[in-house]
């Protein structure tokens, strides 16, 4: 989306040499990554590894959205942050520092705000891929609807306790989040990491896989795949299962043939619970 399709600089060739060797990436793929813009919403357990690997692999522009500050209870899973940031740094500022240590070639834009219906489309507009690395159902519906309205593919990950889930929504005839979950779940089933806990490496695994899905989307590889959901569980063997998903649902309220949701709505009211009901 940055428009430039210049050749790679010597600095880029030096840094990405090990990726340029892979035919599936090559100069063309590396340039696509550089000329792409990805928005990572949530710089917590999922967003930490996802943003680090997107920057390290050469995504040119990375947007970060979070309204929270870094807390000691984050550090067992949010590896982009530091103890020093626990003195009150906004997560997006702390994450930006982490990315800057790793790569000066990545252009980072930070949004230290709570994503809501009033700002979501403005913030998300113009990105090639949006990564949902948030922690509550209301924000997940908000991001989904905004992605559908803006026509942006959505890489959605989640992790609770010992389990994780990963899906790409709103892409190539596949479903959106609402196609799969037209009605929000009951409020008392929406426990997040702060109430039920999470093993630190579980969002680590899912966040890395979100970075991988983003690369597949940006390089075109994802076009060859059918819609699927990856289920991960630390507790069961095998740890990973891939579930075939439905296509886009013609009757979907937002991505269907006759959508009833044509603007963002009040997602906290829709879900009966919002982002503030989860502690960090």
């Amino acid at each position: 989306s940055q428009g430039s399709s210049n050749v790679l600089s010597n600095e880029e060739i030096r840094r990405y040499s090990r990726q340029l060797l892979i035919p599936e990436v090559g100069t063309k793929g590396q340039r696509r990554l550089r000329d792409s813009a990805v928005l990572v919403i949530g710089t917590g357990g999922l967003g930490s590894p996802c943003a680090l690997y997107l920057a390290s692999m050469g995504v040119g522009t990375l947007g970060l959205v979070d309204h929270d500050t870094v807390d000691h209870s984050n550090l067992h899973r949010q590896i982009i942050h530091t103890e020093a940031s626990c003195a009150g740094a906004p997560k997006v500022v702390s994450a930006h520092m982490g990315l800057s240590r790793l790569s000066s070639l990545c252009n980072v834009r930070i949004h230290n705000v709570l994503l809501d219906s009033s700002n979501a489309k403005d913030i998300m507009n113009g990105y090639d891929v949006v990564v949902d690395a948030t922690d509550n159902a209301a924000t997940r519906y908000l991001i989904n609807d905004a992605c559908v309205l803006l026509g942006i593919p959505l890489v959605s990950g989640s992790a609770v306790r010992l389990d994780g889930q990963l899906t790409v929504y709103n892409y190539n005839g596949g479903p959106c989040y609402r196609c799969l979950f037209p009605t929000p779940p009951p409020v008392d089933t929406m426990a997040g990491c702060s109430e039920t806990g999470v093993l630190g490496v579980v969002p680590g695994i899912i966040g890395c896989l979100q970075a991988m899905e983003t690369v597949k989307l940006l390089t075109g590889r994802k076009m060859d795949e059918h819609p699927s959901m990856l289920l991960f569980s630390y507790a069961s063997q095998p740890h990973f299962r891939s579930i075939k998903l439905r296509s886009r649902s013609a009757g979907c309220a937002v991505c269907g043939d006759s959508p009833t949701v044509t603007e963002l709505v009040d997602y906290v009211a829709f879900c009966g619970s919002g982002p503030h009901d989860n502690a960090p």
Partner: protein
Amino acid sequence: PKLDFSAGSLDLVVEFGGGLDALIKQELLKNVNGAKQAQIKFPKQIDQHPATIQDLIFHLRDFYVKDKPELFCVGDKVRPGILVIINEMDWEIVEDNADEYAYKLQDKDHIAFISTLHGG
């Protein structure tokens, strides 16, 4: 549970994931390599018609859920936020049913109910 097996039976594996296993009577669950599963012998016919997944869902709601059945079903339907997976496929694509609840159970079916996760 009074089940009528006069028309034959189906062997089903029913799995509960994403935290749903906590809703189920633990003595009815088996730990199969870490997955929480119930092995259920189910009638081939219910009230003269081939047994459907709707019949199974009623049976689970009435005899397997510990308490809080509203966290498994809302009325006749699986509560919002639960994915139903038949033999590793989203149940919507298993058959060209207008109504996914009409799916006719097959012997050896593996049916998973997985709660969607929101945390990160």
